[in-house]
């Protein structure tokens, strides 16, 4: 097995594993995360609590699972909203050109000009902290990413002869964008989606860590890390497990993205076809 398909498989296993864990957590966790058991607090990993308990006696594994649901959920919805707005904007900019293109892309530049975390802090301090506002913040800085990448790909396609042929067939820009441009950008989009998902996950963790994202009692990886920070001397495993979870999930989505890109890009496919 080539290293490339190996990384794609690992990426698939990791990201699907976390998604499965998160879905499971919506119905079932080993322990109730809302139930405090102060008597059992700060236990190390053991037979009863596999990953130990936190300062309030909650089961770390259960917290991680619920946290996965929150973090993945926020990232997924945010990226979906960002792509849902960014993709049509990019398609429209490429199809219309002229001042529409100029307006959309300059507006994107303005959003891009703010560091994404700063933008997120701005939004959450303005609207108040919470999962919904984290989604909004992450979605906003996803819009220009998708708009830009779709516009770039679409501009290349609009000069291709099969698009000209569709225009000669009397089809309008909207129809051509939907029938020819978008399907031919699907591979590109799939890759970008998985990469943005990993970035969204990181952003959600960062916002929650700062106290700007998910609010207690809802568990999230960022909150777990923030809580564990003061207790590192007492219980180092409390920071270790959510940290590992973030790392593995981000790694998983990144590997998935890279693997998909290699799989879908004909230029990278079967290197023996390329002249050295």
């Amino acid at each position, binding site marked *: 097995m080539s290293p490339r398909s190996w990384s794609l498989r690992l990426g698939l296993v990791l990201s699907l594993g976390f998604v499965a864990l998160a879905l499971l957590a919506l119905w079932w966790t080993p322990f109730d995360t809302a139930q405090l058991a102060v008597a059992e607090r700060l236990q190390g990993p053991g037979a009863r609590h596999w990953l130990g308990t936190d300062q309030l006696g909650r089961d770390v594994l259960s917290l991680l699972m619920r946290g996965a649901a929150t973090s993945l959920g926020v990232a997924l919805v945010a990226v979906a909203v960002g792509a849902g707005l960014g993709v049509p904007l990019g398609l429209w900019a490429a199809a219309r050109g002229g001042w529409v293109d100029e307006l959309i892309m300059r507006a994107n530049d303005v959003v891009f000009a703010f560091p994404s975390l700063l933008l997120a802090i701005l939004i959450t301090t303005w609207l108040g902290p919470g999962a919904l506002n984290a989604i909004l913040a992450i979605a906003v800085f996803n819009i220009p990413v998708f708009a830009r990448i779709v516009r770039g790909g679409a501009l290349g396609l609009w000069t291709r002869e099969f698009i000209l042929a*569709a225009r000669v067939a*009397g*089809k309008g820009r909207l129809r051509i964008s939907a029938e020819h441009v978008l399907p*031919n950008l699907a591979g590109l989009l799939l890759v970008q989606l998985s990469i943005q998902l990993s970035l969204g996950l990181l952003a959600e963790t960062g916002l929650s860590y700062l106290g700007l994202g998910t609010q207690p009692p809802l568990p999230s990886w960022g909150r777990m890390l923030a809580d564990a920070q003061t207790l590192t001397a007492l219980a180092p495993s409390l920071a270790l497990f959510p940290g590992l979870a973030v790392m593995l999930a981000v790694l998983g989505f990144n590997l998935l993205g890279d693997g998909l890109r290699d799989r879908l890009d004909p230029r990278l496919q079967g290197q023996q076809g390329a*002249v050295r």
Partner: protein
Amino acid sequence: MNQQTALLSIEQLQVCIAGRPLIHGLDLQLRAGQILGLVGESGSGKSLTALSILGLLPRGAQRAGRILLDGEDLLTKSERALNAIRGRDIGMVFQEPMTALNPLIPIGEQVAEVLRLHGGLARRAALARAAELLERVGLPAARFGLERYPHQLSGGQRQRVAIAIAIALKPRLLIADEPTTALDVSTQAQILELLRRLVREEGCALLLVTHDLAVVAELADRVAVLREGGVVEEGAAQSVLSHPREAYTQGLLQHSRLPRQAPRYGDRSDGADAAPLLEVRELVREYRLGGGLFAKPTGLRAVDGVSLTVRPGETVGLVGESGCGKSTLLRAILGLDAPQGGEIRLQGQVYTGREPALRRRVQIVFQDPYGSFDPRWRVWQLVAEPLHLLGRMPDPAECRRRVGALLEQVGLRAADAERFAHEFSGGQRQRIAIARALITEPALIVLDEAVSALDVSIRAQILALLARLARERGIAYLFVSHDLAVVRAITERVYVMAQGRIVESGATQEVFEAPQHPYTARLLAATPDLERALAARALPQPLVDLAEA
């Protein structure tokens, strides 16, 4: 010719890629000072042969046999040893001048780089030598500074830079793979002349890989005809091209020799007096260049007051070199871009591209048989796409039925409708493109370099198909091409376009035999012509004799 005197000697070369044998038992020899034309159709293995010599075959390719350069076997050399040989002993010129140069490095640096890497020259000395080399290939430093970037040069000028790099270290062997295929005819003539001069002056050998027999006839001393990875026929250019022994070579020559006059399709007594089908009057189309939020754009008049007519059932040619405005003109005729001035009438009605009923009367076949189909659609969807112009798209079953019937008319099978475009060869794809153009029953089909990317034998088939369709359906063609030989063979009238204007027009026969405008005359003189080259060869050629001695 024996092995001692051969500079390059290929013996029993075999190349396998992914288990498929692509070259089997190829033998070739080339002496110093000689030009060997390696000709063949696509898939014959001519480019693979050139790449084998350089050790540049795709990864995973398996080779056997021997390639001797001055007695040393290149196939046994390590990558490191080959790196030293490439550039120093063997120079290479590729087809595509747009991508052969690094866009980020000034041309002087690019030539100097070879000299510094292989020649061990210091930067200053290398740049001075680069200036000399660029001057030799016709880019004097006074007009084309060393600090210019590739994008500031034309295609022909870039190819000159590529040649300067290839000859920088005075290689003993120069390999040129379709060096002029991407260039206009007048640029092609200059590049061929440059190659000829360099071989004469440097005494190196030139392996010229090309599909164009006329180019070989003008340049090569010897010719090797390749087919399916083997040499079909090899010998002195004069004898192979004038008296080919093999049936395959004869066929290739026959397809390359196009008729010098177009046949008239059927009886068209209404011809000259008929109301024009397409009438373009004083068309103007400008592009805004540069500009932006703060910069003022400058205008480029790509089409500058062009008028032309096409009558029903007529085949009209439009020739011109790249950048002359013919593509812009076509886009306007197809209603893709609105003109800034003048008007287009179709069957007497003003046409802006917004009238579906008129639009379906004009369809197009593009040059590139690979780029003109959406790779994700099936053939029946692709061919049926223009039915959109009829207002209501017929249901899929009806589409399939109509497409199947059309595919059979253009020489494919109805069952091909379910396949994807990439499953077909270049010639078959052009047939699909023609089917797509026919489905709205147009009165005019614009053929935009429609046979330029095809092998000569396939080109002959497509031209025959077009002729049959014209006869049977009375379709008019506007045939746009830079290939004057094809235009001469199939069009009745021709327009010559240069710098956005029509400089000459008239009956094809008259324009080609007695061009009135100097531009037309130049274009005709620059076009490689098999007959003319062979006639010229019949004269004594002291240079060739010298090389043979």
